[in-house]
């Protein structure tokens, strides 16, 4: 693929997993010139050295403000313009901010060539957020199970119950109190800690 058909894209992201997901997506779509930057020190110098056509940065990155300086530096090789400069496409701006990504495009790259790149970023960023969410949920489920196991242990010891009976007691209490089993289990742990 010639340089003309594949713009050079720089991904600025401190999350290596998300950057990898994004890079993979871009490569699958035929964008071969993708470089990742994860080191924020001398960010501008790194970008000037790479001289990209498109810069993608996540919105949780404080270094976004550093990129804004590119609009000011007259010595810069080429002057980038912000994705949002085109005011006509409000929906696309909204979608990208919601997803948490921002794009800076070097002047001269046609708008219709940017749209698919940004759309791809948005869907990959959303996919990553979903993944993160699932991971968080799995983590908290694991935590819950640990708490419940310990609460069962306490009930078995203090009340002389079997594991099955301890669990039934937890579950029926939770239903009566309209709380989650893990919340009841946590209060048992807290109480037992206090009564030590």
């Amino acid at each position, binding site marked *: 693929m010639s340089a003309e058909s594949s713009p050079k894209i720089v991904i600025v992201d401190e999350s290596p997993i998300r950057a990898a997901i994004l890079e993979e997506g871009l490569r699958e779509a035929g964008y071969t010139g993708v470089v990742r930057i994860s080191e924020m020190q001398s960010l501008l110098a790194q970008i000037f050295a790479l001289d990209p056509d498109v810069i993608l940065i996540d919105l949780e990155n404080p270094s976004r403000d550093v990129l804004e300086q590119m609009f000011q530096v007259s010595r810069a090789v080429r002057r980038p313009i*912000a994705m949002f400069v085109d*005011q006509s496409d409000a929906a696309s701006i909204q979608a990208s901010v919601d997803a948490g990504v921002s794009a800076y495009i070097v002047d001269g790259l046609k708008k219709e060539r940017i749209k698919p790149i940004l759309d791809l970023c948005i869907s990959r960023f959303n996919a990553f957020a979903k993944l993160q969410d699932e991971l968080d949920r799995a983590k908290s489920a694991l935590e819950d199970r640990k708490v419940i196991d310990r609460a069962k242990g306490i009930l078995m010891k203090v009340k002389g119950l079997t594991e099955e009976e301890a669990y039934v007691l937890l579950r029926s209490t939770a239903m009566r109190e309209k709380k989650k089993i893990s919340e009841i289990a946590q209060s048992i742990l807290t109480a037992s800690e206090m009564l030590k």
Partner: protein
Amino acid sequence: MTASLRIGFIPLVDAAALIVAVDKGFAREEGLDVSLVREVSWSNVRDKLNIGLFDAAHLLAPVAIASSLGLGHIKVPIAAPFNLGLNGNAITVSPALHAAIMAEIDGERLDPMATSAALARVVARRKKNGVEPLTFGMTFPFSTHNYQLRFWMAAGGVDPDEDVRLVVLPPPYMVDSLASGQVDAFCVGAPWNSVAVDLGVGCILHFVSDILVRAAEKVLAVRQSWSEQNADVLGALIRSTSRAAEFIEQPENRAEAAKILAQADRIGVDAEVIQRTLDGRLKISPDGTMRQSGRYLLVGREGAGRPEPVQAAWLYAQMVRWGQTAYSAEALKAAMAVFRPDLYDAALGRRGKSAEAPDTIGAFAGPPFNPEDIASHLAAFAIGRRKS
């Protein structure tokens, strides 16, 4: 009336009035249900305000103007009906640069003309010896920090675009960058100057109040269209923020205010450091030297809350001086119209400006600022990048 608002802020001490208005319940008493959203960059705050994800924001005064003029980004007219703080920034330099300036100084060390001339000699010597130019950190191209640093060093003969490097750094990275030698100095708001001094990696050279007596810093910003459609809600927001500003300025409330601001989801630094800022009592050197100033950060006192269009005109003049835009009478008018004392007065039932709020910038160098004739005002300054 109950209105739900999302308001963005950057964790800095000059967001105090906004945070206290919400966390102390003043906003709720005005019928506002406010969610404060902590942000990591001014670009994010600007964009989320512009596209309507935020109803209001704690914003750099020059960003409100740049956004209204369409400089650097999309054009969205902004209204600033309340000034969240005057002054509050400081210039901090590495111990090495501090020593170099003090070795060259001819005059009082708090006199910005003396330090600026000394800096010019340090810069000239480095150039002669073929040493790398000094690097200064600031927070954003359209920031008071950028203009304050430039104004100060240019007065002594240092060209900020030719003789030194000025780089944007996110405030939380300032201290590390000074410690690692990536920058030699920076201009930033509280608490970061104090953090650098406490860690022994910097000395506070100037409070910006040494450079400008009265400088608009952060504003409460809303989209102009929103201000028209939500006049009652905006009035309630101005009243609760103003009440918070008055609360913070009572010395007996400072400890409570500092504790509110110190929370992890607000500013998230030690309450003691925040209180020092509010009191204007700062440690300026790792050796423990303290400096007290009644002008360090003004949140509400001396009429600080009322936005003064002359401040917007001064900031616009800096954009022209440093080549961020070419002068036009129309743009000047638009810039001044961003600051809305009329909305402030309407919300608080006050009329006209109070006697205690002087219409002045009070810069240490150059002729008094005259918004009526910016071209000849700027002509008085030797260094600049004016576009014709």
